[in-house]
């Protein structure tokens, strides 16, 4: 049993039970424990169902790049690479845009406009990912192939990052679609955090002679940074796990290429695509990929906590991830 909650005082267990406090505590504790239990069971199941693959490939699973269901050779590297690159591109695009929009909505825009826009942003966050995938296929991909990718190639084609044929689909396109998907999260959470910065912080900055922008950029944003960081990690987690929209625009080819124009693959996509027809070691390799994705999320959450601890010590406001 966990320690007693607040305000239990010196009343006897029986009287607390009678008043309902104890019952409420036990029930809510069970609910809370369920979350932990589900997580543990999930990992155990993934671990158990990937035994064959883990034993057969060992650490090579993370180091090789061949994915051959017929020869039963499985290397996760192209999928890990694709997942990180697409999510990375998404953050690179979404963070400045989302943060900028959040600052405008929280600090500069009139209340009415801010509230109205927030309504639309919340609406965007609730759009199912397959819709974003369709948007990607029918609008983003043709624009990428006909306009953006040729322009990038002619301007930056000498670097390895923008070389190769312009298929329209690929890492960059998947990153852009993901960015569109995660921006609402960043805006929504960041705006809330910025709005919750105490008024006296702003007033103090203004009183010291700073301009409005200086008070926003040098006082309000740093004060809210842990919450903003939280919104970014939320976006990253969404980007890593996104399946449907990515598989529709990434090209579904397990290759590792420095070129952002190249087609690629992600962990979530390959699991969704190949699981129904897989069996034996093949199935287990896919389950192990799921384990890898889980591990990623776990590590990222850990990093987020760490970052939070490191930054809050320097005197910023308490946010929440």
């Amino acid at each position, binding site marked *: 049993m966990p320690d007693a909650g607040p305000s239990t005082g010196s009343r006897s267990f029986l009287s607390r039970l009678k008043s309902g406090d104890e019952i409420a505590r036990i029930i809510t504790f069970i609910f809370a424990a369920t979350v932990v239990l589900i997580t543990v069971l999930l990992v155990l199941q993934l671990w158990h169902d990937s035994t064959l693959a883990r034993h057969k490939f060992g650490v090579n699973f993370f180091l090789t790049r061949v*994915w051959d269901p017929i020869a039963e050779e499985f290397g996760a590297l192209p999928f890990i690479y694709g997942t990180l690159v697409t999510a990375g591109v998404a953050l690179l695009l979404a963070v400045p845009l989302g943060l900028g929009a959040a600052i405008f909505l929280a600090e500069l825009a009139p209340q009415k406009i801010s509230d109205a826009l927030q309504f639309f942003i919340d609406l965007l966050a609730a759009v199912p990912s397959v819709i974003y995938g369709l948007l990607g296929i029918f609008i983003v*991909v043709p624009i990428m192939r006909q306009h953006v990718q040729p322009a990038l190639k002619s301007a930056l084609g000498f670097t390895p990052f923008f070389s190769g044929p312009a*298929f329209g689909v690929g890492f960059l396109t998947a990153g852009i679609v993901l960015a569109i998907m995660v921006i609402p999260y960043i805006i929504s959470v960041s705006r809330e955090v910025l709005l919750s910065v105490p008024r006296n912080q702003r007033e103090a900055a203004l009183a010291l002679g700073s301009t409005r922008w200086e008070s926003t950029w040098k006082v309000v944003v740093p004060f809210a940074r842990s919450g903003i960081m939280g919104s970014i990690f939320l976006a990253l987690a969404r980007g890593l796990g996104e399946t449907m929209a990515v598989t529709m625009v990434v090209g579904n*080819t397990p290759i590792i290429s420095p070129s952002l124009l190249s087609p690629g693959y992600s962990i979530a996509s390959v699991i*969704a*695509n190949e699981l129904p027809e897989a069996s034996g070691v093949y199935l287990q390799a896919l389950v192990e990929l799921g384990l890898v994705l889980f591990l990623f999320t776990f590590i990222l959450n850990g990093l987020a906590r760490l970052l939070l601890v490191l930054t809050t010590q320097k005197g910023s406001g308490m946010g929440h991830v």
Partner: protein
Amino acid sequence: MKRLAGLLMVVLALGGIVVAQNALLINGAGATFPNPIYSKWFDEFHKANGNIQINYQSVGSGAGIKQATDGTVDFGASDGPMTEEQLKAYSDKHGSGILHFPTVLGAVVPTYNIAGVSTSLNFTPEALAGIFLGRITKWNDPAIAGANKGVSLPAEDIVVVHRADGSGTSYVFTDYLSKVSSDWKDKVGKGTSVNWPAGLGGKGNEGVTGLIKQTPNSIGYVELIYAAKNNIAYGAVKNASGAFVKADLVGVSEAAAGAVKDMPDDFRVSITNAPGKKAYPIASFTWLLIPAKFEDAAKRDAMKNFLKWAITDGQKFAEDLDYAKLPKEVVAKEMKAISSVQ
């Protein structure tokens, strides 16, 4: 009032149980490709035999085999025959085997989008294998141009599109390529998912079609039924007799008829690259996987009756749904096999 409602609930629940006991419920799972006709069949069969209800979940061939092996469903369905390993796993678990019954036929067609080319193209086996191996990279390559005299093919790069999801369509296509190209057989092989040497992956027939429509100078493959339903142009393929055949239901049935004389007793036969002048070379049966031994006699009889009906009277629904009918010879052979189910 509350008590009355409660009583009503109990009566309804009991009624439900009684009804459920009267109806014989049979569950199956497997291939997605024959799902439209299976749904039609199960529906029609239920209309004729009110007490038998067959549920089918189109979860994919691999999952169908797995669920049949695990015993979570009464029968499975697959677009590719089960492997020796899978058969062994089944009989190890159940103590008796599982039988393959061809139900209808389907075909896979090459579809493409080349700027300025609107005529139907001819593909030789060498050209298809070369393109999907990533060795033939330009549309004006002699291997393609040689079979398409009079068509001006551009000197553009070929963009290859294949299925990204595991599918029976890929199985049939790679089975065909494995037969016509030893390089393909050695380097890639056949399966519902393979390590594609070239190209982009699209999810489902619609994903492949979408990529091809949008990408100039691309080529891919889709099911005939999908191409026919969506008016997608596709090319002809050179068959084993040297004739270029554009896929249609007659050509597919022809391919099956050509394969009949070599048909093994367990029906696990590939009819890609089949002999016969009119035979379309990238065709395949799709199979129902039925246990050789049922524990429940009522289920066994229902299943046997259904199978007999499906391969005879049921075939009349096939062509409306763009599936090719079983040739007569196969039906006769299957009728014998059905009687062996215990």
